[in-house]
C-alpha cells in the first residue's frame, strides 16, 4: 500500500488544500473545511465529534494549528453506520515548543478513513493514541504522516485496531526524520485484535531516517481472539460472553485509558462497548 502522494506536508504547499475528488473520485464531495487554531502560550482541551450525516459519501477537511508554546488535547470521536463512506483529513501544524495530544476513536462505516498529516517545528511534540474498530463488514482506517524537519521534536503513536464480522481495519503510519531533525525522536506502536476468521487488520508502521542523531522505534502485534483465554476466564467463573467481552474491552482499554478525562473516557467506553 503506497503512501498517498497528497501527504506532502509543507505550510503553503498547494496540497495543503485538500481535494478529495482528486484522490478518491468525484463522488466524494468536500462538505466541510474548518480550522482549529490555538493561540500562543495557551492550553486547551477540545472534543470533536465527527458525527455521521445522511450523506453516504462525504469528505471533511480540518486544519489544526497549535501555535508557539501552546498545548492542545484534542479528542476525535467518530461512529458511522454501515452504509456510510466518509473521509476525514486533518492537516496539523505544531509550532515551536508546542504540543498536541491527539486521541482518535473511529468506529464502523462502510469506508471510514482518517488521514492525519503532521508538521513539527523545533522542540514541538505530537502524541497520537486511539482505537479503530469495524464490526459492520466495512473498512476503518487511520493513516498518519508525520514530518520531523526541525530539531528536537518528538512524535509518539499508539494505535489499536479490532475487526469483527468480516470487517477490516488499516493503520498506515509513516514518520520521516529528515536530515535537519537533529535530536528528534519518533515512536510508533500498533496493536490489533482480529475477532473472527474472516476479518483482517492491516498495519504498516514506517519510519524513514536521514539523520544520525535521532532515536526511533516501531512495533506492531496482531492477535486473534484466543479461545484459550476465554476458557481460562471461564474456568475462573466468567460466562462465555463476559469472558469474551473482558478480553476485548481490556484490549481496547489500552487506548481508551490514555484519555486523561474521566467523562470522555466513559463516553468512549460506551461507544465501543458491545
Amino acid at each position, binding site marked *: 500500500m503506497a503512501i498517498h502522494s497528497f501527504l506532502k506536508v509543507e505550510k503553503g504547499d498547494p496540497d495543503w488544500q485538500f481535494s478529495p475528488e482528486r484522490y478518491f473520485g468525484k463522488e466524494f464531495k468536500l462538505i466541510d473545511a474548518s480550522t482549529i487554531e490555538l493561540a500562543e502560550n495557551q492550553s486547551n482541551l477540545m472534543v470533536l465529534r465527527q458525527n455521521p450525516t445522511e450523506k453516504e459519501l462525504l469528505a471533511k477537511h480540518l486544519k489544526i494549528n497549535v501555535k508557539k508554546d501552546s498545548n492542545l488535547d484534542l479528542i476525535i470521536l467518530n461512529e458511522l453506520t454501515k452504509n456510510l463512506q466518509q473521509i476525514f483529513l486533518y492537516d496539523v501544524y505544531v509550532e515551536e515548543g508546542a504540543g498536541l495530544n491527539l486521541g482518535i476513536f473511529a468506529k464502523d462505516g462502510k469506508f471510514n478513513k482518517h488521514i492525519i498529516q503532521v508538521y513539527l517545528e523545533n522542540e514541538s511534540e505530537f502524541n497520537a493514541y486511539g482505537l479503530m474498530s469495524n464490526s459492520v463488514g466495512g473498512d476503518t482506517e487511520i493513516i498518519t504522516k508525520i514530518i520531523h524537519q526541525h530539531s528536537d521534536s518528538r512524535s509518539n503513536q499508539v494505535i489499536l485496531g479490532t475487526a469483527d464480522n468480516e470487517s477490516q481495519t488499516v493503520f498506515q503510519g509513516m514518520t520521516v526524520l529528515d536530515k535537519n531533525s537533529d535530536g528528534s525522536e519518533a515512536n510508533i506502536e500498533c496493536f490489533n485484535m482480529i475477532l473472527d476468521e474472516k476479518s483482517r487488520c492491516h498495519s504498516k508502521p514506517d519510519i524513514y531516517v536521514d539523520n544520525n542523531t535521532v532515536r526511533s522505534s516501531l512495533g506492531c502485534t496482531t492477535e486473534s481472539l*484466543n479461545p484459550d483465554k476465554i476458557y481460562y476466564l471461564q474456568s*475462573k*467463573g466468567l460466562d462465555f460472553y463476559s469472558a469474551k467481552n*473482558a478480553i476485548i474491552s481490556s484490549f481496547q482499554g489500552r487506548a481508551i485509558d490514555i484519555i486523561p478525562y474521566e467523562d470522555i473516557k466513559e463516553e468512549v467506553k460506551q461507544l465501543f462497548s458491545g
Partner: protein
Amino acid sequence: MLTIKNTSAVIDAIELLNDISITINPGEIHAIIGPSRSGKSSLAHLIAGHPLLIQTEGSIIFNKKNISKLDAEDRASLGIYTTFQNPPEILGLTNLKLVKMLLKAKKDSRLDQTIEEDYSKLCELFEMSKNHGNTDIDYDSMTPSEFKKNELILMMMLNPKLAIIDEIDLELDDDDLDIVGAALKNFVNNKKAMLLITNNKTLLDMMSPTHLHVIVKGVIKKQDDATLYKRIIEDGYSQFP
C-alpha cells in the same frame, strides 16, 4: 466431594485418558504424579471443563451433581478451581480488575475496599510487589513465577471447595516454592480438598498427600501407600508398563 468413575476422554479423536476413577473427600490431598505427556494436565482440564476435551465414557460427580456436561464456568461456580501451567496474558487487564470481575460474577458480597484489603494481604503473603494489583496480566509486566503465584492469589480470593493445582512448582525458585507450599498446606481443611499434580519431591514433602496416584499413558495406577512418591519419582516410571 468429587467422584470420577470409569471416565475416558479424547481430544481431536486422540484418546488422552482411559478408564479413570478417583474419589476425593473433604480434607484430602490427592497427589498425581507421572511422566510428561502422560495425561496429568488433561485430567485437570477434564475436571475443569475444557471445551475441546470430550468425555466419552463414565461420570464426574461433584457434590452429588453430575458435572460431565457442564461448561467450565458452571463447574467453577460450584467451587472447582484449576490453576494453569501457563496462564495466558490478557492485554490491558490488571490483576485487581480481574479479581473484582470474578468476584462480581460469583456474587461475592464484599465491598470494593474489603476486596482490595484482602487482596493486598494475599499479595504480601506471596511476597508480590505492592503494586501487583495494578499490574497488567502480560509477560512484559509479570515474570513467569509471578504468573504462577497469581494463580494462587486468585484461588484464595475465590475460596473454592476443590483446588486442582497443576504443576505449580515449575518456574518457581526454592524461596517461592516454600511460600507456595505453605499457602497450599493452609488452604486444605476439613471442608476443602486438593488434587495436586506435580513431580516435585520438595512440594510433595511439604504437602504430605493423603492419597497417591500414578498416571502413565492416560491410565491411573492407584498406590496404597501415599508416601511412596519419593521412591517412584527416583526409580522412574518404566516400572509402570
